[in-house]
């Protein structure tokens, strides 16, 4: 993108030159210069050969290009119209498409950081007058159709939309097995990571490329929370508050980042008050539940072993990492109890 914008700057400066000079692009390189401690922040440096040879006549176009790109991002960030032409803005199709919610790329400019996020990129693509663009994405879906002769398959997304892909060898077995389970309702979901083409309304139009496809656990937390996200107020025969998207997003992130992957996944159910109840049935006779309030801040944890009337209870602060550590420890501790072991009620 930087090269194409630099070329456009060059043409703007020299409208009578038909050709871009030879070796125009040979003088630029992007290098990873460091990974900051304790985070996933990458420092990438624009290295131009002209820095070694300051008299390089092309350096100025790359510097202008860098400024134009950052100013365009800043404009989109503030809701203004970017000054880059739509055909150049379209290069954002390839830049920043792996950004997930909460992630960003920062560019220092005039003493502040200009930030490219999923939202900013979407605005830039709209200004590029793009009808469709690509996104790197993780999709949870069922395999609803397979055509072995044509070597294609169809995914059925949770919202009912369908998306076609090619049945390539690396993930063929996973797709076929998920398809076999389509009607059983069990083990029939897959996680597809790859690049998908979407339109302005956010509808997925086609799979561009597939990185990998893996079978999903029937208790996959994100899949279940997405299902619960479709509940409306009054879902329980006229009663029942629907869980908020904020709560569902908080739980998705927390289970992904803070829940011990070695522990069994919970069953998840809505509560009438708009919260979520997580439940585990452990094979040593313990039944565990944790009611999460509608704000996602408190977890009311309770474990019972009905055969000997044992019980444990805890109040967990789920807005803090310590609450999730407490949940992991409590589940590990209960899981270690042998079936015949007596546990002191607390």
């Amino acid at each position: 993108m930087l090269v194409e914008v630099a070329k456009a700057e060059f043409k703007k400066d020299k409208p009578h030159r038909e050709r871009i000079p030879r070796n125009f692009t040979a003088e630029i390189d992007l290098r990873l210069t460091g990974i900051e401690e304790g985070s996933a922040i990458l420092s990438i440096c624009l290295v131009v050969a002209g820095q070694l040879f300051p008299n390089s006549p092309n350096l100025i176009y790359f510097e202008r290009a860098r400024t134009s790109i950052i100013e365009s991002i800043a404009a989109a960030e503030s809701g203004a119209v970017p000054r880059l032409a739509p055909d150049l803005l379209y290069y954002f199709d390839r830049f920043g498409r792996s950004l997930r919610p909460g992630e960003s790329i920062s560019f220092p400019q005039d003493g502040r950081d200009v930030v490219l996020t999923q939202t900013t990129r979407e605005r830039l693509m709209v200004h590029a007058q793009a009808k469709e663009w690509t996104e790197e994405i993780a999709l949870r879906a069922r395999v609803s159709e397979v055509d072995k002769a044509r070597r294609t398959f169809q995914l059925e997304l949770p919202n009912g939309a369908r998306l076609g892909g090619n049945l390539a060898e690396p993930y063929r077995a996973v797709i076929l097995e998920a398809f076999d389970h389509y009607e059983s309702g069990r083990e029939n979901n897959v996680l597809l990571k790859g690049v998908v083409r979407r339109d302005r309304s956010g509808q997925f139009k086609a799979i561009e490329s597939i990185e990998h496809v893996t079978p999903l656990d029937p208790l996959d937390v994100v899949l279940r929370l997405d299902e619960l996200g479709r509940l409306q107020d009054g879902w329980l025969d006229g009663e029942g508050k629907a869980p908020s998207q904020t709560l569902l997003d908080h739980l998705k992130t927390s289970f992904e980042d803070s829940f011990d992957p070695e522990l069994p996944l919970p069953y998840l159910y809505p509560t009438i008050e708009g919260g979520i109840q997580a439940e585990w049935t452990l094979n040593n006779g313990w039944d565990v539940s944790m009611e999460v309030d509608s704000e996602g801040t408190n977890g009311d944890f309770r474990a019972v072993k009905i055969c000997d009337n044992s019980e444990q209870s805890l109040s967990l602060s789920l807005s803090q990492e310590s609450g999730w550590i407490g949940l992991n420890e409590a589940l590990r501790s209960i899981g270690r109890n042998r079936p015949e072991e007596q546990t002191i009620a607390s």
Partner: protein
Amino acid sequence: MQAETLLLRQVHPSFIQDGRPSSQAFFPTKKDGLKLSVYHGDKIDPEPSWKHYTTQLGKESSGVIAVTVGECQSGQLPVVDDGVPYPEHCFIDFKNLTNSAIKKKADNLATLARKRGWLFRVS
């Protein structure tokens, strides 16, 4: 009503994941005066109770699970055979209990019902 009489409880589809019913299925609501409605298992079978619940009462259910009168009584939960608003209606009475006691007793009933398994399930 005998100790072994089954009390049939309808389970809302949102309270089922991967075939497992939630303990939420046994939580009484304040709207119902903390009276948990169940069907008298000596008067009606699980499948007809589901049909009555979904067609006559127009409510959602994906299946039927149950506890016995004896299991409720062991947990200090009275069972009342009131026959209102339909002849097979009974309720498990959670009144005068604290919130945490309600949850504890509902959890226990759900554990017992899960051990008994589904008595009827919509296929």
